[in-house]
């Protein structure tokens, strides 16, 4: 199923479109969700709910953006709810310890923690709005006006958050990830 057929299926709320959505955009949404929330288990739930919500509100997709951009907007919205709800959770120390054991044994989690621990840690130290602009800019490769449209804020706000977030990441990660080294860019590579 190509992009046009997939869009038609989503608009018609065809349940068979779900599998194609997972095939076409599942991994990319999942990676973005991991960066945004820092937890692969939660990221999986977020993607799951994103795809369901996309199908439920498929008739609202007007085609002004790509299907992936629209899906990512839903993901961003759900991630904001996730961060808001997480602030309300009072952690039970005993439950946290019990949960930590199986999570450490999950190879997916291990992979994230070992290969990108510093990045994830630094991202999670940022506030959610600053993390969003970084992920949209450097993972989703969006331009400033695209980010502003996606987040519903002005370009000036996006640039201000971006300057701050880059400065923070630079100060935290420069020694470990050689951030100041001149290198080829992956920018625009996936678009």
């Amino acid at each position, binding site marked *: 199923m190509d992009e046009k057929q997939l869009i038609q299926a989503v608009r018609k*709320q065809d*349940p*068979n479109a*779900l*599998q194609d959505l*997972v095939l076409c955009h*599942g*991994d990319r*949404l*999942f*990676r973005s969700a*991991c*960066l945004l929330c820092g937890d*692969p*288990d*939660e990221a*999986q*739930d977020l*993607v*799951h*709910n994103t795809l*369901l*919500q996309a*199908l*439920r509100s498929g008739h609202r997709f007007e085609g002004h953006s790509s299907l992936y951009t629209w899906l990512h907007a839903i993901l961003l919205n759900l991630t904001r*709810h996730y961060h808001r*709800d997480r602030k309300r*959770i009072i952690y039970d120390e005993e439950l946290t310890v019990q949960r930590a054991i199986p999570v450490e044994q999950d190879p*997916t989690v291990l*992979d*994230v923690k070992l*290969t*990108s621990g510093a*990045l*994830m840690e630094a991202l999670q130290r940022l506030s959610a709005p600053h993390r969003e602009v*970084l*992920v949209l*800019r*450097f*993972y989703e*490769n969006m*331009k*400033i006006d695209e980010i502003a449209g996606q987040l519903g804020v002005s370009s000036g706000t996006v*640039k201000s958050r971006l300057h701050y977030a*880059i400065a923070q*990441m*630079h100060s935290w*990660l420069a020694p470990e*990830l*050689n*951030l*100041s*080294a*001149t*290198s*080829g*860019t*992956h*920018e625009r*590579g996936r678009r």
Partner: protein
Amino acid sequence: MNCGSFRNHVFEYLDGSLTGRLQTAAEEHLDACAACREFVAEQRSIAGSLSRTFYDATESLHLPPQTWEQVPAASPGERRSSAVGTKGVRFPSRRLAWSVGLFGSAAVLMAGVLFVVVKAHWPGLIHPETAQTSMSIQLSYPVPAYKFHAGEGFVVDSVSYQTAVICQTVAISRNPRQ
């Protein structure tokens, strides 16, 4: 264009999305300002490093296969049909859970208001001394009872309904105005 103005537009400059006049002014400023050339190079370097780091950190991640199985099984039509009265129902959002709870509460409140309004519009009904006969008003409504637990997200373990009944026997006057 001065340094402050250029640095304010540096992201658009890197995007190549500056408009004609601004693009020209930016290029002229860069030709004349070594500090801003260095700033642009630094921004390019940081952008490249961050971008590469994001990709390297996530390229081995794949959506776990169980999502494949769960998503089609939980298509909207099927969710709607199984969303009430079964165990393990999961609300997609806290907002929806609140809506369901508020709807139940509103139903109870409306039943009470209706009862009061009925009594208010037939004042004779509440004066037994003028009554010559009586009638019984009975209102019944379902009250949802949810059992929640804190799991991954907001999980409802069970939903059950109890029927609440308000019954009132009132006297009816043949001529309430008398």
